[in-house]
């Protein structure tokens, strides 16, 4: 049986991460941007698991565990903020939320 090389997983992880970055820059809806961030986190998870497998070290899986937990918490709080913004400014377009300027 041939084995899938770990570097393949890493490449996939890199591709997903890159696509996440593009989405993060490209999209205008706050929620969609947030989803791109989640995509990035997932890509990183994949990389962690791949490395854990490559080195036979379970610590990588533990990190993945924590990442998922933190991502969940972050999602909760972040979406709460999104709801607040949406109620206050009546828009979901990130470009309209531009008060943080000079």
């Amino acid at each position, binding site marked *: *049986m*041939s*084995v*899938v*090389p*770990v*570097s*393949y*997983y*890493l490449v*996939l992880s*890199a*591709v*997903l*991460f*890159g*696509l*996440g970055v*593009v989405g993060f*820059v*490209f*999209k*205008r*809806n706050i*929620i*969609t941007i*947030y*989803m791109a961030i*989640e*995509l990035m986190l*997932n890509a990183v*998870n*994949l990389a962690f*698991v*791949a490395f854990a*497998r490559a080195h*036979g070290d*379970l*610590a990588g*899986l*533990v990190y*993945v565990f*924590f990442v998922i*937990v*933190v*991502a*969940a*918490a972050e999602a*909760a709080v972040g*979406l*709460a*903020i*999104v*709801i*607040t913004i949406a109620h206050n400014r009546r828009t*979901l*377009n990130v*470009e*309209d939320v*531009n008060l943080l300027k000079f």
Partner: protein
Amino acid sequence: MSIPFILFFICAAAAVLGAVLLIVAREPIHSALALILVMMSLAVLYLLLGAEFIAAVQVIVYAGAVMVLFVFVIMLLNAGVEVRTNYSKIAKYVGVPLGFFLLLEVAYWMWGSAVGTTVANGAGAVNADAVSTVDLSNLLFRDYLFPFEATSILVLIAIVGALVLAKKGE
């Protein structure tokens, strides 16, 4: 071409497809569904890598809870078609190309990384050397107990924060 390979490529393709759909979709709900597709493929990939527990957690927590939350919020806010405003020229002309560049660059480095084409201890097949949950939980509750507890407090804070924030809006 063995089954792991084929499975790998199918799932990889699905993941990339989902990611692309995420970017390209015009409605947020479509993006959410694409993300779920990605997460599912990733779960299969975790399985391929022998991380069953993580695969399970991914499906249950990530795809099952977090994405549901996203969908609910989209539904609540009635997020419609994304408006095409073009306020930031820099994002359009610099950010997107650079994002692709980052993608390619990291992929390139990962490809040529010194991790090796074969795994040292020959793991990678589906059933060989699956990680046992017992080992993982040993690690989690012994060596990584402190981060575990800290994370649980973090979750608590997140809950409280979410409650407070969501409440204020009304």
